[in-house]
């Protein structure tokens, strides 16, 4: 059954419809938020807040035209609200420090490639990261990303292209640095 159909059932008071939606989207939504925040506990809180908003809207009778973009829109906005808080801004700025601290942990785990990817993605602006995460991890279509972020399809495509090009540049720079280090 389609997600929107479950939302319609929820709006009619069928509470179990919400359970299905949570089972369907808990993992992907958690992955999306975790990649944006790099904090498991925080990601759990934002996921809870996102699903709570979905549940409340459903109880009020709201049924979105497309559930998935709507859900990611709520999640992204909830993350943005979190970053707007003065205390969280500090945490956001020091993301790199956190990554630095966890660098040792990752090396021990032999996850150097993963670590490189995380660090490189963190060098991108939030606008680029968001579109890339929605495209590569959440598997959204361009039109769905456009709906989720309230931007045009062309802007989505441009951001993905520029984001990936920036990643290419980072890769080239790092390889050059590595080669210089060996010499």
């Amino acid at each position, binding site marked *: 059954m389609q997600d929107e159909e479950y939302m319609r059932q929820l709006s009619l008071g069928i509470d179990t419809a919400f359970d299905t939606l949570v089972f369907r989207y*808990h993992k992907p939504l958690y*992955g999306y938020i975790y990649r944006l925040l790099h904090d498991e506990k925080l990601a*759990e809180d934002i996921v809870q807040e996102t699903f709570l908003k979905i549940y409340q809207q459903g*109880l009020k009778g709201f049924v979105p035209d497309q559930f998935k973009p709507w859900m990611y829109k709520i999640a992204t906005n909830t993350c943005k609200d979190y970053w707007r808080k003065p205390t969280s801004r500090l945490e956001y700025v020091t993301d790199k420090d956190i990554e630095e601290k966890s660098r040792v942990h990752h090396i021990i785990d032999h996850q150097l490639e*993963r670590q490189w990817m995380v660090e490189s993605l963190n060098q991108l602006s939030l606008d680029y990261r968001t579109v890339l995460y929605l495209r590569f991890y959440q598997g959204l279509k361009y039109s769905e990303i456009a709906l989720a972020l309230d931007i045009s399809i062309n802007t989505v495509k441009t951001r993905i292209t520029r984001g990936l*090009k920036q990643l*290419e540049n980072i890769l080239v720079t790092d390889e050059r640095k590595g080669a210089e280090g060996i010499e």
Partner: protein
Amino acid sequence: MSENQELSRLEKEWKTHFDRFTAPEPTREMTLDLIQKIKNIEQEQSPIDLRLELETTQNSLSTRSKIVNMFLSQWNFYGTTSWLLTGLLMIAITFTISENSADAMTGFSSWIKWITLLVIGVIGYSFRPKNEGNEIIESLSYYPVIQQIFTRFMFVMGFQLVLTLPLSLFVVGKEGTILYLVSSFIPVFFFGVIGFVTIFWLGQKIGLSITLFIWFSQVLLKKKLLFQAPGDDYFLTVNMIILGISILLLSSVVLKRRFSVNLK
């Protein structure tokens, strides 16, 4: 190479790289726990939020607006049609009695009886505890019951007294004096207070029964007690006594508040 082709190429190239950035996955138990948490939060939040919303709106209003809202909500509670019908009934009673009574004294006696019965009827109707309409319920729920009933009492009394005084002059005609005005005011006020206080303390059914019992006992008694006309022997004494009793009964409403605070 077109922009779209470049985008496809880049996406293909980077797909495997992205796969490396894994994220922890919540377990089935975590999902079940999340569902339960959300439903609990929603259950706890909704009634408080509605109340909070109402409180915030009301708190943002000035004292003048609050009083005006209070009167408007109580007026709506009773309904404009009902108020107008009450007025029409009073006028009808007055005309019927003035046309059918031989002299001012007899006319006044029967008029005051029916007017006071009307006061009791209006009180019984307007003090019913039923709320009507969502908006009215919301605005009413902000005010304590004591304030609501008292406002309705003021409506009933104010409205009836404003009509009673000029109508009493119509009944007694040329013989209308200050004493007639007083004697029409006090019984109306007395039955208004009895109705209000008994309903307030004992509930609508018992309160209304007691009030009607007092009224019927006065009508059925051969000797005049409460409905004294200016020419009667104990006119001043009786009116002073019932006025005193009315004030004492009315002040007992204040006790209820203290009583409920102590209980808490």
